[in-house]
């Protein structure tokens, strides 16, 4: 059994400018013929010199204002972005929850979508069948499980999506502000489910704006600002640091 580990050393991540300046055959040709003055668009330096070591047993919260780099850091850990510079070493099965409704087919029933989402998560159809009863039980949809999910209310969708996404355990759990949606009853259930996932997972990294859950769920917290880690340590202190940061006028 390998030990789960996330190791980032001197990691720089840049969003390449060719991804978001205007790209079409027409604009390429016009530019070549110097008929169009290009706006100066540069690479966005999304993560700056990140040094991070997360070992088994750590539950890390990522705090920061919108655009600080929390989602970017999570996706870099997940291996979705290529690092411009530095070293990224991750050991363990990664389970990421970035968007709950990924892979949902609106015309298909809830039961069918359980299968579709499970296949996405890397399960075989047989394994998916085994997971069906506990998922249906957790989602609490009753007979609606056999109705097309386009008939579901927003809350029902969230319950089903959450139930499926959290049914499969992994070594490293990456959560991007997914505990936001849902009514109070569901929130309690969701928190308990996350807690049980956490006890099974060896590492958890959670990006959140909910400062209350930080202390409840995590034993370490990072505060990010504009792609840099400004604080790394105790969750309670991190929350204080973040609150103080938020009170300063922007730019300082």
């Amino acid at each position, binding site marked *: 059994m390998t030990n789960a580990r996330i190791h980032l050393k001197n990691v720089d991540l840049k969003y390449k400018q*060719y991804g978001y300046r205007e*790209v079409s055959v027409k604009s390429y040709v016009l530019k070549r013929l110097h008929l169009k003055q290009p706006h100066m668009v540069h690479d966005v330096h999304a993560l700056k010199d990140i040094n991070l070591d997360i070992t088994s047993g750590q539950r890390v919260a990522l705090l920061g204002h919108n655009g600080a780099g929390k989602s970017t850091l999570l996706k870099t850990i997940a291996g*979705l972005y290529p690092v411009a510079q530095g070293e990224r070493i991750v050991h363990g099965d990664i389970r990421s929850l970035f968007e709950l409704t990924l892979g949902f087919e609106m*015309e298909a029933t809830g039961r069918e979508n359980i299968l579709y989402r499970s296949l996405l998560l890397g399960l*075989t159809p047989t394994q998916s069948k085994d997971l069906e009863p506990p998922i249906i039980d957790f989602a609490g949809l009753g007979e609606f499980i056999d109705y097309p999910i386009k008939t579901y209310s927003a809350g029902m969708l969230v319950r089903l999506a959450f139930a499926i996404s959290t049914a499969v355990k992994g070594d490293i759990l990456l959560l991007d502000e997914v505990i936001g949606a849902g009514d109070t009853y569901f929130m309690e259930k969701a928190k308990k489910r996350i807690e049980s996932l956490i006890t099974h997972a060896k590492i958890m990294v959670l990006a959140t704006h909910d400062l209350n859950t930080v202390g409840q769920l995590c034993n370490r917290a990072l505060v990010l600002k504009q792609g840099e880690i400004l604080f790394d340590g105790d969750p309670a202190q991190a929350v204080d640091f973040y609150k103080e940061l938020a009170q300063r006028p922007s730019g300082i």
Partner: protein
Amino acid sequence: MFKSLLCVQAYCKKIIQARYFWMHLAWADIRAKYRRSFLGPLWSMLQPLTMTLLLAFVMSSLFGANMLEYSLFIFSGIIFWDYMVSSSVAGCNAFIQAEGYIKQMTQPLLIYTLRHSLSGMIHLLIGFCGLVLMALIVKPENFGWSWLSMLIGFFLLLFIAWPLATITAFTGTKFRDFSYLIALGMQAIWYISPIFLEPSLFHRANIAFLVEYNPIYHLLELFRAPILHGEMASIENYAYVVGSFVFLWIFAIWMTIKGERELIFYF
């Protein structure tokens, strides 16, 4: 060289590991296409058949050919050509369509183009059933062992459509209007290839090179030789097809090596 072979092997392994996922995606595409449609999958046979009869009626009136035989000729070209077109044009949007998946899970990108080639293949197979039926009615004497060679044809066809879709997918993600260019290109090829126009026409007009050096002609011969003439396609036909296969794969692998890691930035 050895290291890159290992990389290719590791990549193929990842594709095989994700097999339930891309098989599901291919079926999802087919379900989506025929949802709430009255005739459903029957359209995969009716649509090319109608086109065939229309063309056959016009062309046989113009050139005085036998309409039934000409229909068989056209039908045996149209369904495979439609597959090539759909694979290339839909391929342009393969990664764009899979944006949600690409931005949230690490999977080999080739599975998103494989999905299009596969779902297109299923449409093709439905049309092919219609072709077999027509062949057994119009030219039953051609039915024989040579038809088994079409299995090789289907295999080669899939593994030509897949790299083609991959090439258009990488290009189409970077240049969003590329699909129009491809559609236009395919239209042009339709008119200069022996798909609905008989090869003899090209020979008579002294533009036989459009037949002899045209990979499309040789690809179609893999299926036309058994169905229209009751014999296996020639070595020359297979050589052209295998050559195209190799060329397209080299190009597709090169594009994947160059572009896969940073593709996420193009969304």
